[in-house]
């Protein structure tokens, strides 16, 4: 069983299906969900364990049953107003009438555990008993999410590092939805001993994914937009992945653009994630890509990839140029309530891929 070591980044996934990525150190205070608690408690504990923040803001271990009892991760009901009942008579009384005042609830929070508060709130709901079974379940879910703060501890992965940031500020990832990142990786087909030139202004999420796949066996020369003077460790996805020294050594942060041309061998890949002036990159660096090399560009804007396609086509150096996007949707799978999720991110970005053939 693997143990959480000092200085390791871990992913906390909570009972609202939200997450936070933190570094574990002794006596390290973390603020989340209006609580402030000592995450140092997790030191030397196992991954995939469950924790609760109690009324004194102490982090205490709970069982998996206790956790899943307070969460709805497996159901993820999002059908705000979807009901299958014989009639829809009750729908109008959807809002809760709560006897407890805000002040009473606030004072409860200091005296009682989350579960007890949820009980009290339900007992003081004027409408709970009239609700349909389904409405009751949804009501309970919301109250538990509100008053109970529990989470599981997971290893960081490209997926949860991406998800955590994407939920909060997708623009920091250039709106690169998870499927676009997945496509980016598959279209890049990273193999051992690849010698990669990357341009990433998405804070390094793409570089991290590539570096993990390369596993130290090859090299990445990477240019971060407007960050040419920074240290590699300043980019949070790279930090959060707890990369080994070997992997970190394979990433070379280009601080001086002239270094790009000083590479001994030609590049096997030219990968761009995010907004640059693409045309100037290809004007200057396409010649540094080896014959048979792979070119992948991600952009939020189709027009920009169109421009690149025109440029590469007229260069006569590239094979079939693929431009694509994707549609991705999560589904709720519940008895008699199966449907695509209502909440959706409708634009994941666009990708261009081609091979250099001359």
């Amino acid at each position, binding site marked *: 069983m693997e143990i959480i070591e000092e200085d390791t980044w871990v992913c906390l996934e909570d009972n609202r299906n939200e997450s936070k990525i933190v570094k574990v150190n002794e006596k390290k205070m973390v603020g989340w969900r209006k609580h402030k608690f000592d995450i140092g408690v997790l030191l030397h504990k196992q991954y995939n364990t469950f924790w609760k923040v109690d009324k004194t803001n102490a982090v205490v271990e709970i069982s998996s049953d206790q956790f899943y009892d307070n969460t709805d991760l497996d159901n993820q009901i999002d059908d705000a*107003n979807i009901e299958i009942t014989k009639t829809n008579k009750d*729908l109008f009384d959807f809002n809760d009438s709560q006897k407890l005042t805000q002040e009473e609830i606030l004072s409860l929070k200091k005296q009682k555990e989350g579960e007890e508060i949820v009980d009290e709130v339900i007992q003081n709901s004027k409408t709970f008993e009239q609700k349909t079974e389904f409405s009751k379940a949804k009501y309970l879910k919301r109250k538990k999410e509100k008053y109970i703060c529990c989470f599981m501890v997971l290893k960081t992965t490209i997926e949860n590092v991406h998800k955590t940031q994407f939920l909060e500020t997708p623009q920091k990832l250039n709106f690169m939805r998870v499927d676009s990142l997945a496509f980016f990786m598959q279209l890049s087909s990273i193999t051992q001993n690849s010698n990669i030139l990357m341009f990433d202004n998405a804070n390094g999420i793409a570089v991290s994914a590539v570096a993990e796949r390369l596993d130290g066996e090859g090299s990445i020369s990477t240019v971060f937009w407007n960050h*040419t003077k920074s240290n590699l460790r300043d980019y949070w996805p790279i930090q959060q992945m707890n990369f080994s020294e070997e992997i970190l050594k394979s990433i070379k942060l280009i601080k001086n653009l002239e270094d790009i041309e000083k590479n001994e061998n030609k590049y096997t890949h030219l990968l761009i994630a995010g907004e*640059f002036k693409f045309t100037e990159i290809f004007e200057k660096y396409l010649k540094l890509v080896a014959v048979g090399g792979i070119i992948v560009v991600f952009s939020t804007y189709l027009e920009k990839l169109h421009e690149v396609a025109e440029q590469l086509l007229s260069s006569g150096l590239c094979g079939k140029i693929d431009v694509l996007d994707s549609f991705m949707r999560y589904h709720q799978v519940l008895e008699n309530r*199966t449907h695509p999720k209502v909440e959706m991110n409708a634009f994941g970005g666009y990708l261009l891929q081609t091979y250099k053939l001359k």
Partner: protein
Amino acid sequence: MIQYGDTMILFEDGKPKQFLTVTQGQTYQNKYGAYHHYTFLVKPGEEILSKNGTGPIYLMTPNPHLITETVPHKTQILFMADISMIILKLCLKPGQRVIESGTGSGSLSCSLAAAVGHKGRLFTYEFNKERANNGKELFAKLKINQATCFWRDVYANGFLKGEDTENQGEFPQESSIDAIFLDLPQPWLALDHSKKMIKKGGRICCFSPCIEQVQKTALELKQQGWKNLETLECLKRHFERRVKQEQSLFDDVQKKVCTDQNKRVTYSAGINQAYGHTGYLTFAQYI
């Protein structure tokens, strides 16, 4: 020209905001200031300024699309994408007679009524009394005379004139209806009644959020002999313009070489937030 008593749609900050009935002596107040209603007696769509000359607002003639964007709703309503498909695939045209249940916010009702025009008829049934009354008021306010709203449990009582004395107005006759739209939790319970009303060749559409509802509906439609079943979903996505500062990678390194300084470019960007699901539309024809 707008008259006193007309219900218009108020545009504020370039977007539809609410219904507004132009009334003598009244004043409308927003963040830009006050607007006397007598300044509203202009052409629909003309710029109207507040007393202090700021915050242009506009009064637009209500049309089906704007009504959908403006109508107040407490529960989920049918949006533009579904409404468009319902009207096209039910093959509605002026002069036809249509049944809808439930009325809900009235958002779809107004579009159905517009599609059959003033020579057509819309009979709309709502289980919830409050919403049935809302529907009646909405039609009166917007002068949609071809629509009648009934307060009725259609599972139990169907669409024909019955014992319920609360409901006024003309009821539809058997086998006289060109198209039926059902947005009910259990549409399969209203199919028998629907079959009674529909003309030969007429069409039905059932809207359901969950696939299990669609499965039950499809099964019941087939068993009742409805033909040419089709189920589809339709989602809309919006784009916006985004202005970008196109900066050269090389500007940053050698501060002197600066190719297209301050070049501003606009791109079409998708608006990420969208409805991933509203419901499935199941169509069938009575042959």
